[in-house]
């Protein structure tokens, strides 16, 4: 397939995938009377039809929040900027800390540091969030001083420090391990010993011989990194009660037991836009790194 055609496919292809994907809760449900699993395709396709028809009369962009009917466009702006902020900070800080500390971990001999890193990396994101919250509550009960807000009590008074901390910790942790792993592999290569034999300094070898050969792996791994970033996003917006895109979708996906198909579709599409923005940002950032470390 030529590249232009492939690119042209992305938008309708993505739309189709999202439309089908968001159908699941409308299609799959168990019978309230006898508990038999129903696969109700008709229901699913009628929600797609309603959604498409909703473009005409504007119903596609209205949803119920509790008992209020709200316009999607009026609500999404704030949520979008909140999510974009946390994603951008998490992505950029994560990758910077990841590369720098990853290099450090690859050459340092402090085995215990690596062990601690590995131990924390194995804990799922929600455990880290819960443990951070525990820590704050514990400190507050011991000292009587609340260091950070544990979650946002209202939308006007959001928690900031803890969400920022968790949006950085988890991607950075993944990146550190990844960089350290590839650094370790790269450092076994013959061109490293050759550079050493030429009498080049350690720092120089690391940054101008090893790191340029690690960056391609980072680029190839970017989608996985993004996956971790986004998975983490769902969890921490929910647990910290941050009014971002995922919380908007999640807390309103069901109104009075009815599945709001159009809200979920719109929300997922918004997330894809975010994904594209953050991805472009990261590519640009790595491009910058390459310009610095490749002669």
């Amino acid at each position, binding site marked *: 397939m030529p590249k232009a055609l492939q690119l042209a*496919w*992305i938008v309708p*292809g*993505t739309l189709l*995938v999202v439309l089908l*994907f*968001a159908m*699941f*809760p*409308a299609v*799959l*449900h*168990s*019978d309230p*009377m006898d*508990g038999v*699993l129903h696969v109700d395709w008709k229901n699913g396709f009628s929600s797609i039809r309603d959604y498409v028809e909703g473009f005409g009369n504007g119903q596609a962009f209205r949803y119920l929040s509790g008992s209020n009917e709200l316009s999607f466009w009026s609500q999404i702006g704030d949520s979008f900027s909140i999510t974009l902020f946390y994603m951008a900070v998490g992505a950029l800080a994560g990758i910077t800390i990841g590369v720098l500390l990853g290099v450090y971990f690859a050459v340092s001999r402090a085995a215990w540091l690596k062990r601690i890193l*590995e*131990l924390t990396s*194995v804990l*799922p*994101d*929600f*455990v880290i969030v*819960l443990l951070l*919250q*525990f820590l704050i*509550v514990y400190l507050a009960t011991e000292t009587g001083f609340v260091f950070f807000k*544990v979650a946002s009590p209202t939308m006007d008074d959001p928690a900031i420090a803890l969400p920022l901390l968790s949006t950085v910790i988890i991607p950075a942790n993944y990146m550190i391990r990844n960089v350290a792993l590839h650094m*370790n592999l790269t*450092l*076994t*290569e013959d061109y*490293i*010993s050759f550079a*050493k034999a030429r009498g080049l300094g*350690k720092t120089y070898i690391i940054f101008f011989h090893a790191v340029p050969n690690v960056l*391609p792996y980072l*680029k*190839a791994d*970017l*989608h*996985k990194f*993004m*996956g971790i970033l*986004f*998975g983490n996003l*769902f*969890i921490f917006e*929910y*647990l910290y009660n941050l009014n971002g895109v995922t919380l908007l979708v*999640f807390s309103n*996906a069901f109104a009075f037991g009815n*599945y709001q198909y159009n809200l979920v579709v719109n929300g*997922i599409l918004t*997330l894809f836009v975010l*994904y*594209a923005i953050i*991805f472009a940002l990261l*590519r640009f950032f790595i491009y910058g790194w390459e310009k610095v470390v490749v002669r």
Partner: protein
Amino acid sequence: MNKTLFAGLFITLVIMAAALFGKYFAPHDLNESQQVSYHVDPNGESTLIVPPTPPSGDYPFGTDKYGYDMMAKLLAGAPYTIFGSIGVAFARLAIGGTLGLMLGFFGQPKKCREGRFSIWNLLNGIPIFIIVWMIMIGITMNPLTSTLKMTLILTVVLALAGIPSVASTMREKAMVLREKQFVLSAKSIGASPWTIVRTHIFPHMKESFIILFVQEIVIVLGLFGQLAIFDIFLGGTKMTFDPVEYSSLTNEWSGLIGAARDNVYMYQWVLFIPLAAYILFILGFHLISVGLEQLYRKRFAKVSQI
């Protein structure tokens, strides 16, 4: 002596033994609940006991707000968590691993398209637990089918969701191996493809299979937890109205964590104790995987030059 591996095996075996036989030794079982009681001792000191009570002599892990013993709940839920996660990981490895092995050995190498922006890459942006959430949310609330069947449904969905990633990992490894000289020489002396896969490729990937299996268990446990945060529990969710509360039908560990999410502020042991058990279990498997990696690295790897 590989201490890490030993520690990991020890932790997981102790937890598994507790899951299987713990209920015969536990001080309380799931049917008895602590009642509100009021005592006045001879000195005139009065004590009022109202569940939830913090961990103490009689209830080593404390009780929840309905007076049920946390230890009994943990023991009742443990088999679901433990064997559920192991089962999902096993299915992923058995199906995805075999598929990857076949694809890697017989398939054509894909053209290099790293970093390209395709639909499949975009779909990576949807975390697996969201996909599973989408599928399960219509089924999991107040199910009328048995908890065992609900457990089975969720494990099958989780296994299917994880097969592609396992398959692609294994495929890459098999592709590297099939370029090796011993494969070429086996081919040239007339070995059939099946013989090569069975006697040359698979034995070289045995270690990867074992390590990936342990890592998949950890990943699946993480998924259980993430789903539980969004009120999808292994074995079904009991939803009560007025006030809306979600609780796990099986007392499975991540379900206990998810249901007690709001106990960060008060009665923290109700959240902390299942969380601690869950973390300990994950750490056990993590230590096994690190231990195995150390073991294999000692045998096979090259050394850093710097």
